């Protein structure tokens, strides 16, 4: 720990050194800055052109937002992928708050605290092993989480629908038309983009597996209320409302969920 006096002396020395032997910002450093800025603008224009004239960077425009839709993919911009993927690791509802609020808050606090924790004057990397290891770990973990988030697969509705008859068989609701209709709705409504059901779907955002939802004995009325406003029933749930499906469809979905006892 360098004393404050020592740090002050060192900074005074720095100021003297710069005054005596430094170079003026213009034109020397400014030359580098100008070249780099031109590169940045060129890269941005190039990206816009690649986006316009090829398919590499995705479509120019997507389908218009439809709040009453049945299929959707809740995918954030790439720099939130790490968080998006983190939600898969922490299971809802016990620990998901750690991923949504806890980890970002802790990261922010660490960043704010950094200059007050690391008060040594030492700046050479060979003498800062902890800083180097921390930097490498952060880069690797952010890289892996971003990559995982980018390659996370959403279930394709047609594939999910194909699995409905096998669900009915395993859960034994083949002869319950209400539950069968619910299962079809479940497959169409992008539920499997976040939930898993008998091995189908992907557990995004920490959403739970629903194969044995009916075994919990919550009842159809609860299921309907939950689908209408998830966070009203389960405070803190990030699941969107499905009220737009309408009362009849919600009843079918609820019947299907209640008929899901875990399968054989």
């Amino acid at each position, binding site marked *: 720990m360098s004393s404050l006096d020592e740090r002050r002396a060192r900074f005074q020395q720095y100021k003297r050194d710069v005054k005596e032997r430094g170079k003026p910002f213009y034109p020397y450093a400014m030359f*580098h800055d100008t070249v780099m800025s031109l590169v940045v603008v060129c890269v941005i224009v190039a990206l816009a052109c690649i986006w316009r004239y090829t398919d590499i960077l995705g479509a120019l425009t997507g389908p218009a*937002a439809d709040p009453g839709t049945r299929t959707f993919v809740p995918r954030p*911009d790439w720099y939130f992928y790490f968080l998006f993927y983190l939600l898969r690791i922490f299971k809802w509802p016990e620990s998901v708050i750690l991923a949504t609020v806890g980890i970002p808050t802790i990261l922010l606090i660490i960043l704010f605290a950094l200059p007050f924790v690391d008060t*040594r004057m030492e700046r050479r990397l060979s003498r800062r092993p902890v800083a180097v290891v921390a930097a490498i770990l952060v880069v690797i973990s952010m890289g892996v989480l971003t990559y995982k988030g980018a390659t996370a697969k959403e279930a394709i509705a047609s594939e999910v629908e194909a699995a409905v008859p096998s669900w009915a068989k395993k859960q034994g609701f083949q002869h319950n038309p209400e539950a069968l209709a619910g299962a079809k709705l479940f497959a169409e409504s992008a539920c499997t983009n976040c939930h898993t059901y008998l091995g189908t779907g992907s557990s995004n955002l920490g959403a739970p597996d629903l194969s044995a939802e009916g075994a919990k004995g919550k009842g159809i009325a609860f299921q309907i209320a939950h689908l209408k406003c998830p966070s009203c029933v389960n405070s803190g749930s990030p699941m969107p409302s499905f009220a737009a499906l309408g009362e009849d469809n919600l009843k079918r979905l609820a019947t299907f969920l209640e008929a899901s006892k875990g399968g054989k």
Partner: protein
Amino acid sequence: MASKSDRRQHLERAATYPIDWLEERSGLIGGLRYFLFRKVPGDTNWFHTLGSATLTAFLVQLATGVILAMYYKPDPNSAHASIEHITHDVTLGWLVRGMHKWGASVFIILLFLHMGRVFLFGAYKYPRELNWIVGVLLLATALFEGLTGYLLPWDQTSYWATVVAININGTAPFVGPFLASLLRGGAEIGPDTLARFYSLHMLLVPGALIGLITLHLYLVVRLGVTSPPWSDEAAGEGPPEPTKPARAGLVRPRARTAVRGRPTE
């Protein structure tokens, strides 16, 4: 001959008059001169351009954003159509929107690279702690700018991503539900949400970014640029003696003084 130099003098006086006028009344010219001719360490290099590169990316966002705001309609019934119109009909609209869309990613990448450079160079240390904090605030504000901008195209991906993002915000203890309804502007995502995000995205958040960037630059100029941590080695005088601390100064340590010879810690 005499008349020629007379004319020259007149010209010079005419050219410098507005500059002198401005300087006398504002001191801005002196400030600009100080900014341009201030000394920086002799061994600043390409790594030191990441900060100004980030600023350039931000300026691109400002310029393209102003143009987009002339055509964009923040209303759920026409937002998506206005984006289609900008992309397909407006002259070079695709370029402006493309630059804004991809410039945002470039801006965020450069922010992280600049932050990494500052971390590895140890440039957040005394007396630059406050500037590091301003930088972290800039990062958080920039991410929020990205979040609010993501909804504006009003397509399926952006709409549902925002639904989930706001719901996640709502899970925060104590302030969560309040924050979520503040962002939504009601119980559901609708016209009020879009207008709210638009206002945040083009007024409040960019304003905060401009203010923070100004403070950031002021502190950079006031405290000076950190030289690379390998300054000592770059001097070509062989590796530093193990008892000596890293020099806070410059490349050519010809006049080593006793002050710098003190051991670390």
